[in-house]
């Protein structure tokens, strides 16, 4: 079976806002020829239950991700900058690190 003859459908990443107050969350992917069919497929697949509010589909090849080789410079912020965390500093009161203002 020659898949090219069928026009192998593109991959789309699916993002769902499952309910109010939540950001869209990546839930998986579907295969579809175009955005309309991708949305329909995503609806059928990821919203069969619950009360979902909104659905996004994004072509998988349109998602740009940080290259693994660049990971260290990209993601090293937390390691060398302990002063970004409250625990780096003394607590405000006697109750210790869980003191009122630290919560």
């Amino acid at each position, binding site marked *: 079976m020659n898949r090219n003859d069928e*026009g192998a459908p593109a991959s789309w990443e699916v993002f769902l806002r499952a309910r109010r107050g939540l950001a869209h969350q990546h839930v998986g992917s579907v295969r579809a*020829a*175009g955005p309309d069919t991708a949305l329909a497929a995503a609806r*059928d*697949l990821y*919203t069969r239950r619950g009360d979902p*509010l909104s659905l996004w589909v994004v072509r998988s090849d349109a998602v740009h991700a940080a290259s693994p080789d660049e990971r260290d410079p990209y993601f090293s912020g937390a390691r060398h900058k302990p002063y970004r965390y409250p625990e780096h500093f003394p607590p405000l009161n006697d109750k210790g690190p869980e003191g009122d203002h630290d919560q």
Partner: protein
Amino acid sequence: MNARPAVGDRPEQATRDATRAAGTTTAAPPSGQAHSAASAGQGAGQDELLAHFDALIEQGETIEPRDWMPDGYRRMLIRQIAQHAHSEIIGMQPEGAWLTRAPSLHRKSVLIAKVQDEAGHGLYLYSAAETLGVDRADLLDALHLGRQRASATFNHPALTWADTGAIAWLTDGAAVINQAPLCRTSYGPYARAMRRVCQEEAFHVRQGYDLMRALCKGTPEQKAMAQDAVDRWWLPAVALMFGPPDTEAGGSDARTAALGAAVSRRAMAWGIKRHTNDELRQRFVDQCVPQAERLGLTLPDPAIRWNEERGHYDFSPIDWDTYRTALGEDTHWARRRIDHRKAAHDEGAWVREAAAAYAAREEASGAPAGPAADVHRQTQEERV
């Protein structure tokens, strides 16, 4: 064209989750939490990558698509997820055959929802498999060509309406026991897919049990039909839904048990599986016996009896070799399942071609394609 962003099918430098490091304790500065493996430079060797991988598994962390992973781990996952996905979609067939013959509109609606869920489970799993660098079209080709298989459980016909109940109660019940631990499997996308599957699977089992209860409370003919369905679906569920025996306690011969045990040990060391096949099989029997008693049905195994000493029900050992011969890919029903699947795929070719032609035309005309143009307007009304 089908490039996926998150596929990590080549060895990559091991990553470290800064968020996790920052969140582990409140007392120590996050810098103290950095993994030593993460300081590996660009030329990190295989050993170091493996050590980091092993450490993540050891800590019960998930492996994500961009992480380096051993080839064997990737292969085992692809094989298992593909087999699982194939089983979901092939599993639609025995029950799907009864959709037009359901005895009431209510039962028909329920069965449609259930069969649709099975299709969905297959798609969740193909999506998860694709994060490992395979293409779902290739997996389907492998199924059609017999290079990969679906669970042989479904290579049985659903002869009566009661079979739809027995399948849901017994094979879906077995699936839940198999799948609940998979919600914590070590590969992130697989675990997340399984959580969705498990949430939906509970409905399948309950509606099946409810269907059986209705038949058992009905006429003697209806009750006999329920018993007949259980007689035919009990062994396929208990033998085939859990895979080959992998302990000698499971009752198989030493060679089969050793073969099964080797695979299970590897899968458990990698955190893909959490329990042996035989352990899960026992759990299934322990749950089903009282359920069958409440229905007034007899499980077709005279060896079933409560063993006070073990705290479990005894049951007949699984004669795996017999099953393997009787249910190989060359049986009548195995061929029918695959032929049906291939026919559906081939007959749907014109739909896929039309969708591709439509998408190409829309793209050429530069028109913003329908509802996707404004993601913020995607509200529930559009779900119909």
